[in-house]
């Protein structure tokens, strides 16, 4: 994720000459004890989690001995923080703090430039304290290329009323932070508290560091797993989604689990930034809680939408499936419809679904959803641009009241399930397509050929094959999934399109789902 855990953030600061406490990370109680031993004396054990106010939540503990450090680590590791388990603690030397300050760099959208900040007090709510006159908060914009100059930095120390003897040391820290901020392309970088020790030296006691999502690939040294702001460590399912997205750049697929414990949990499938938010808000107004956030937009392939659906369906405890975007999409909506049909029949869908695919070619999309999902034991309703997100949320409300989730049932998927008698198979960009030519022999219309968007199939001796040269036509496949659906439609089910998601089946097996 595009945020660094405290220990990683401190490692970066140290690399730029900013002092941080001596410390080591530990993922087991034994490692924590060993770290305390190495440091010697009093230590602090800090849970590495993306939650604010850790001290108040008991996620920061003090220990006077390695044995005590071990015990605290034992309690912290595996504990739930913000809905997610703690996997790592940071064991640090306990500081003898004389005074706490606040130092930060962030981006001001108002002046479209970076801003450095220095607070005369540390701790939480420094801005609120400043507005009440209980603290001074000095703010200065700085140049996005040249950084913060020493005079400006010293003037900030002056404004905060800090003793003159401290000015140069403060200026050095502020300049260092600005340099880290620019070189690592941070969104925000906050040292709170910036500790003043008895000997007058300055130490970054804690650090909040988030990097611009769009610059993450320019900074492999930061070892960020998912280039996206998330308020929690990436979950296994989020990691699977992100890893897949890295390999397939057609459109956008983004999946985020919300630590939702609310009532009326719903699988949410949005399209487009603003439309997704507006649709999720409509859900909330009807008393639902989105179990996840998901966005497939920017003209994604049907294969990508299919994979997105599977992530949403894999979540426990949902009572409905809600898909809705801005309502007037420019992407051809039948791609999404085909992806949904394949996923819903294959999984199969066990909760009512309301799908709003408004915009370009919505009538085709609605027809596909209605025709190919009408036989499921749970209702699936499809709507277009003239039906609002609020209306669709209301429909879902009506449907979930009348149709509680059903147990997994036998559902005929769109793909062939039997091994092929005469297999004709080729690889496509993110998977493979397999025909059973023994079945094709009895087919009269060959709708697969006519339905193919990329027009890469032709009839050879009564059977569909790739146009020659095959190695060139196969990769022109747009993974529109039309051939499989057309084949299913005529009752043949000769075609099987496999679209694997690396790590997904393993995840399900581990979780014991399905």
């Amino acid at each position, binding site marked *: 994720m595009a945020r660094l855990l405290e220990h990683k953030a401190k490692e970066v600061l140290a690399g730029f000459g900013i002092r941080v406490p001596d410390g080591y990370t530990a993922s087991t109680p034994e490692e924590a004890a060993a770290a305390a031993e190495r440091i010697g004396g009093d230590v602090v054990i800090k849970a590495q989690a993306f939650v604010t106010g850790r001290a108040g939540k008991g996620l920061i503990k003090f220990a006077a001995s390695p044995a005590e450090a071990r015990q605290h680590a034992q309690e912290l590791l595996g504990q739930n923080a913000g809905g997610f388990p703690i996997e790592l603690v940071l064991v640090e030397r306990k500081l003898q703090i004389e005074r706490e300050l606040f130092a930060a760099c962030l*981006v001001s959208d108002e002046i479209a430039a970076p801003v450095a900040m220095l607070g005369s007090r540390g701790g939480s709510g420094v801005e609120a304290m400043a507005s009440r006159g209980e603290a001074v908060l000095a703010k200065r914009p700085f140049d996005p290329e040249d950084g913060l100059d020493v005079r400006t930095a010293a003037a900030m120390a002056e404004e905060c009323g800090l003793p003159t003897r401290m000015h140069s040391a403060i200026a050095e820290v502020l300049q260092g932070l600005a340099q880290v901020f620019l070189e690592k392309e941070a*969104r*925000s970088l906050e040292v709170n508290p910036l500790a003043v020790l008895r000997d007058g030296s300055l130490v970054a006691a804690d650090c909040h560091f988030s990097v*611009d*999502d769009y610059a993450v690939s320019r900074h492999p040294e930061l070892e960020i797993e998912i280039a996206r702001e998330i308020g929690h460590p990436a979950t296994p399912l989020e990691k699977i989604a992100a890893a897949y997205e890295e390999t397939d750049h057609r459109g956008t697929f983004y999946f985020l689990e919300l630590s939702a414990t609310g009532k009326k949990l719903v699988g949410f499938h949005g399209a487009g*930034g603003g439309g997704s938010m507006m649709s999720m808000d409509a859900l909330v107004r009807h008393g639902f809680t989105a179990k996840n956030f998901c966005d497939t937009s920017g003209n994604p392939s049907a294969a990508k939408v299919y994979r997105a659906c599977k992530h949403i369906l894999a979540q426990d405890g949902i009572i409905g499936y809600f898909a809705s975007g801005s*309502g007037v999409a420019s992407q051809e909506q039948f791609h999404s419809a085909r992806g949904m049909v394949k996923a819903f029949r294959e999984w199969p869908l066990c909760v009512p679904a309301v799908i709003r695919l408004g915009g370009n070619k919505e009538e085709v999309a609605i027809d596909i959803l209605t025709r190919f999902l009408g036989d499921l034991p749970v209702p699936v309703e499809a709507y277009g641009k003239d039906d609002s997100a609020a209306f669709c949320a209301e429909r879902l409300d009506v449907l979930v009241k009348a149709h509680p989730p059903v147990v997994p049932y036998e559902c005929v998927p769109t793909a062939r399930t039997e091994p092929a008698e005469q297999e004709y198979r080729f690889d496509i960009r993110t998977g493979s397509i397999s025909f059973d030519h023994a079945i094709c022999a009895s087919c009269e219309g060959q709708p697969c050929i006519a339905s193919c968007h990329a027009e890469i199939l032709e009839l050879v001796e009564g059977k569909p094959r790739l146009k020659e040269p095959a190695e060139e036509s196969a990769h022109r496949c747009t993974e529109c999934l039309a051939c499989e659906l057309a084949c299913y439609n005529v009752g043949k089910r000769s075609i099987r399109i496999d679209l694997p998601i690396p790590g997904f089946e393993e995840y399900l097996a581990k979780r014991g789902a399905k």
Partner: protein
Amino acid sequence: MSILVNENTRVVVQGITGREGQVRTKLMLGYGPKVVAGVTPGRGGEEVLGVPVFDAVQDAVKQVGGIDASVVFVPARAALEAAKVAMDSGVKLVVIVPDRVPLHDVMKLAKHARQTGAVFLGPNTLGCLSPGKGVLGMMGGSPEAARKFFRPGRVGISSRSGGITSSMAYYLNKAGIGASTIVHVGGDSIVGLPHPAVLKLFEADPDTDLVVMFGEIGTTQEERVAEMMKRGEFTKPLVAYIGGKQAEEGTRFSHAGAIVEGGRGGYQSKVDALRDAGAVIVENFEDLPAVTGRVLAKVER
């Protein structure tokens, strides 16, 4: 009148030979304004849809004369350089379409824009469109769709979401309400022409009676609009919808700019500030056309 673009705007398309560049050039040629040149380094001398291609923006300016606006369709990582070059060549409005332009690149560009006296729309924008006159960017997709979706009128539209820009214009149009200019300010944290800057332009436009704004959590744009209204710098009626009520702090749901950080940019603070300044807040997106119609009727009476 209208803002940012009209039928006489002279445009250069940077990245005209690329897939997106070509498709959207077709849109601009078919709908307006005047596409007078294209630029792709190394492809000078070619033509795209009858538009002459040059190696550099300077060459285009030299050959075809004054250029009012550039529309940039280069990859995100190349957007900063492309936009700087356009500004250095005297282009005063640069529309940056690509998504995923790094934040620090945008800050560098903002500095360059200040130095050269230029402005930019985006990044991550569909552009802007004055119905019946012209489009900069990709709004509408094709000339036919643009003609069908958008009709001329007296409502200015400013939106932080591309999809919502289209749907707002469509639903307003369906209710018989036309637009003076439709602006997608872009979905990122820092954009060249945020809501306050766009509203300032609408304030000065005699053909805009009212503005409809789609705001979102994150950034200070909506709060600053409220301040402008209180200071009397924006005096026309404002109808606003704010998205992102459910979003939790510190998590980015959709656009790069749609994130609440350090308690700033939350849903309620925006709604409160705007309401306090006299804006009409629409809670249900689908009520937007009806509410806009009512407010507009009062203005035009």
